[in-house]
Structures are given as C-alpha cells and as structure tokens.
C-alpha cells in the first residue's frame, strides 16, 4: 500500500468503513438488501405484468427436454457438429475449385503479361509465383469453407445452442478440474484462438482461466480448418464414391475435433492435478431462451464480417510469406536452395514423426499465422525442382504424392496442425493476458510436446504394423 499523500482523503474513508462495520453484525446485510430489492421488483411486477398463459412461458424451453436429455443430448450434439462440417465441406467444394480455376486463368494472363514486357524472371517469380500464387491459394482454399462455416456457427450461437453444449459437457470439464465455461471459450476457439484467449476473461478463477488458456489451442481455428478439410478430402476419403466423399471427410474432421476435445480434457486434468492444483470453483451458467435467429441477417453479417476479416488477415500474412518463401526457394547456396537446405536439416527428425522436412519447416515458418502453413508447404515443394503445374485443387494432391506422401503423412500433418503450438497472435495475447513469460512458453511447449508425441506414436505404430 502506498503512502497516502493527502492525509485528509484516505483515512476518513477507512473511518467510515469501520463505522459501517461496527454497526453491522454478521453477514446478513447483503441478504436483507438483496431481498428488499427483490421484494420491490416483485411488487412492481405483480402490478405491471400479467401472464395470459403460464404454460406458454415454458414453451421457450421445451426443446431442452430433448436437446439436453440423457438419451439425445450427446447424439444431437455430435449430429449437429457433423452436420456443420458436412455443410461446410460439401458446400465449399465447388466454389473452391471455381476460385482456384479462376486464379489459375488470371495467373496465366499475368505470366503472359510479364513475358510480353520482357520482365526479368526474378520479378515474375516474386510477384506472380510468390505473391499472387500464395495469396490466391489461401483465398481459394480458405474463403469458401469459412464463408459457410461462420454463418452456420453464428446461427447456432444466436439460436442459443452453445450454452446447452456447455451444460451437456460440464460434467466432463468438472472431472478434468476445469471451469464449465471452458466449453464456451473453446467454441470461440473454433473461430479464432487469439480471440478465444480474450474470451477466457469470462472465467473468473485465475487457475481455471489458465487451464482454458493453455488448452484453447486444441480447438482448430479458422487457420487450420482448411488444412484439416483439404487433407481429409484428398487422402482419407478417396476410396469412397463421390456422393459419400463429403460425408466421410466431415466425419474425419469431426474425429479430429473430438480428439482435440479429448486432449483438452486430458491436459486440463493433468494440469489440475499438478501445476495448477485446486478444486473447481463455483459457477452458475445461464441457459438463455431459444430465440429464432434472424436468419438472413445473421448469415449476411457473419459471412461479411468474419469471412472478410479472416481473408484480410490471411492475405496480409500470406502475401509476404509467399514472397519470402519464393525467395528462400530460389536463392541457391551450393547447388541447393536455402529452403531445400532448411528442409534437409529438419528432415531426419520429421521422418521420425511421419512428416518430412518441408512440412516441419512450413509449420515453423507458419508461426505468424496458421493460414499460411499449407501455402508455404506447397511453395516449398514446387521450388524444390519437381515443377508441376498446380492450377486446380486436384493437382495439389499430385504435388504431395510426388514428394512421397502417404495417408500417414496426411494424418500426421492433420494431427500436428491440430495439436501444435498456437499462432503468433495467440501467443502474444496469452502473454498480454497472463503477463507471464513462463506460462506463455508453456502454452507453446505443452502443445508442441503433445503434437510430437502423438505423431511419433502414430508413425511408429503404422510402420511397425506395416500399414505404410
């Protein structure tokens, strides 16, 4: 406590408080105050509010009899989750391909234009193959799924379903030592982990808030959805006939999300038994009435605002990343590009966890934003000699296959993407919120360790059993 400068200001207040304290016995004052206020508002309501039909009042909550019931609670939750993914994936296929085609055509014109004015190769390389291609990939891979996912999610949110998810899952979080509202901050994480870190402020207990912060990353954010969706549809759902493909992709993505939730609960449990010991604090959760969302308005606002901001961020980070990657891939030192040297350096370790040097390097260079991991990877591959013409999304798979990808590579890249350290913005927010270098480091190292551990296991198991 600092010394009060003005003796006449601080002390009289203390004196007042002690006068007040002395005149009060026990803690009954608050109860009396609150119940007197309640009495007043009850008497106002009695005079001013009339109910035509009490039954009608409960109708706003009728749905809870099913949505949070013992039998249907979890199946409905899983079905909704699956449906959201399916709508996103099935709906995004066509526009993604169209965008990619369109950008391919534009790139053709740009290249022709550069040739027409006899622009130097390096300029064409940086601007078209680096900047334009990097950006257009991000846009065509990311924009359609996000423009579908966010409005659908916002509809669910505005309808009032998310608090029910928290209600249904609370027991699990309690057993893991976490706060019931952790489920809510996780749902924010689906949109953006960096924003979700700020949303953990709704958890008042510092211990449980830290749990929510440290584990938020296990929810895939918009920067990672496209990676999960793309890899699942390219490598996991290939044997299925086209009609089932979206559904299987959706199920695989859902499996990833559920796995992320399992990891969240496990890490929370472990931490709350060790570094963040303690019992869950008390809390109350309001289940607001279901409200029919204003469908078109919600869709418009969500697709406009969210997709636009996601896109802007992606382009702002992806464009320079594209340029840098192109430069790294085209400056040669001793016969190989810098990029190739870096990839070669990481390769031995990456192979142990079922990835390769380029993938690991893409994750490292992708620290500023998860959105750019995939473009960096593709650019790395393309600059490494095997120059293929990647215009459509289908061709992306060819690039991967040429670099020795199997389903295990895809699976482990998905797992690594789901589990690895949060992006730079998120880490920065974690530092701002916790004001602690130690916890910020841990929030990167714990996920990294888990990502390496899990991918190591899957790689070893798959190899020992001869699956790849």
């Amino acid at each position, binding site marked *: 406590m600092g010394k009060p400068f003005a003796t006449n200001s601080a002390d009289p207040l203390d004196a007042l408080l002690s006068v007040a304290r002395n005149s009060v016995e026990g*803690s009954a004052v608050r109860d009396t105050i609150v119940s007197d206020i309640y009495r007043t508002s009850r008497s106002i309501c009695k005079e001013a509010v009339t109910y035509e039909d009490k039954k009608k009042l409960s109708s706003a909550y009728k749905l809870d009899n099913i949505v949070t019931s013992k039998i249907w609670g979890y199946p409905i939750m899983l079905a909704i989750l699956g449906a959201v993914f399916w709508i996103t994936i099935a709906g995004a296929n066509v526009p993604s391909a169209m965008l990619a085609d369109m950008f391919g055509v534009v790139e053709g014109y740009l290249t022709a234009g550069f040739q027409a004015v006899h622009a130097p190769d390096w300029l064409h390389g940086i601007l078209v193959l680096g900047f334009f291609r990097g950006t257009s990939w991000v846009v065509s891979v990311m924009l359609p799924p996000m423009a579908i996912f966010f409005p659908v999610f916002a509809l669910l949110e505005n309808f009032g379903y998310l608090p029910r998810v928290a*209600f249904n899952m609370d027991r699990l979080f309690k057993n893991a030592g976490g706060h019931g509202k952790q489920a809510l901050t996780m749902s924010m994480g689906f949109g953006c982990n960096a924003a979700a870190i700020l949303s953990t402020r709704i958890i008042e207990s510092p211990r449980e808030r830290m749990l929510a912060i440290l584990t938020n990353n296990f929810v895939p954010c918009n920067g990672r959805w496209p990676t999960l969706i793309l890899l699942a549809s390219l490598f996991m759902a290939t044997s299925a006939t086209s009609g089932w493909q979206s559904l299987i992709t959706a199920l695989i993505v859902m499996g990833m999300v559920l796995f992320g939730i399992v990891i969240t609960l496990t890490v929370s449990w472990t931490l709350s038994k060790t570094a963040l010991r303690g019992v869950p604090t008390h809390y109350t959760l309001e289940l607001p*009435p279901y409200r029919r969302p204003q469908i078109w308005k919600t869709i418009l606002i969500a697709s406009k605002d969210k997709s636009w901001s996601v896109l802007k961020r992606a382009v702002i980070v992806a464009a320079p990343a594209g340029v840098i990657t192109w430069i790294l891939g085209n400056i040669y030192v001793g016969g190989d590009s810098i990029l190739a040297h870096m990839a070669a350096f990481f390769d031995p370790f990456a192979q142990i966890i079922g990835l390769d040097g380029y993938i690991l390097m893409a994750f490292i260079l992708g620290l500023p934003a998860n959105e750019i991991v995939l473009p960096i990877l593709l650019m790395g591959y393309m600059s490494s000699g095997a120059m293929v013409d990647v215009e459509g999304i289908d061709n992306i798979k060819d690039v991967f296959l040429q670099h020795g990808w199997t389903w295990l590579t895809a699976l482990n890249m998905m797992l690594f993407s789901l589990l690895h350290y949060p992006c730079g913005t998120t880490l920065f927010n974690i530092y701002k919120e916790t004001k602690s270098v130690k916890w910020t480091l841990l929030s990167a190292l714990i996920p990294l360790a888990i990502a390496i551990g899990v991918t190591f296991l899957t790689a070893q198991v798959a190899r020992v059993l001869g699956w790849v």
Partner: protein
Amino acid sequence: MPSISIPLSDALMGSHICLDRIDVQGILRRRLLDLGFVPGNIVEVMQKSPLGDPIAFRVNNTIIALRKEESSLIFGEYVGSDEK
C-alpha cells in the same frame, strides 16, 4: 402440514421448490442472490444434464444451471406448481 426441507440437488425433476435456506457463503452467495435464489422465491427443477450434473433450475423465468456442489447447499420445500 409440516414439510421437510430438502437440498435442490435432491429435488424431483419438474417439481417446484420454495427456497428457505442458502448455505453458501462469499461471492457465490451474492451471485445466487442476484440470480433470484432468494429465500421465499420459488424454483422449478427443470432438467438434468445428460451426465447427471449439473441441473437446470428455472428461477424468475430464467434458466440457471448449477453444479451439485452448489445446489446441494440450497434448501427448500416442495410446493404446488402454481403457488406464488
């Protein structure tokens, strides 16, 4: 007719309880009072979560979910559904 005071956590689903005692202290007590868990108020027991805990209660026409740890410390008596 004498009636026995039971904790909210033991109340039957769908029943109405007139609160008579809240054995919680500190911040949570204040929060509960703010939400309408005030002695004399009537609470409807709505729904258990699929895993049995928490339980949703309707108080002043809003639904509030409480974990067992808290609801077992709030006591009241059964009343008829439309008593005010």
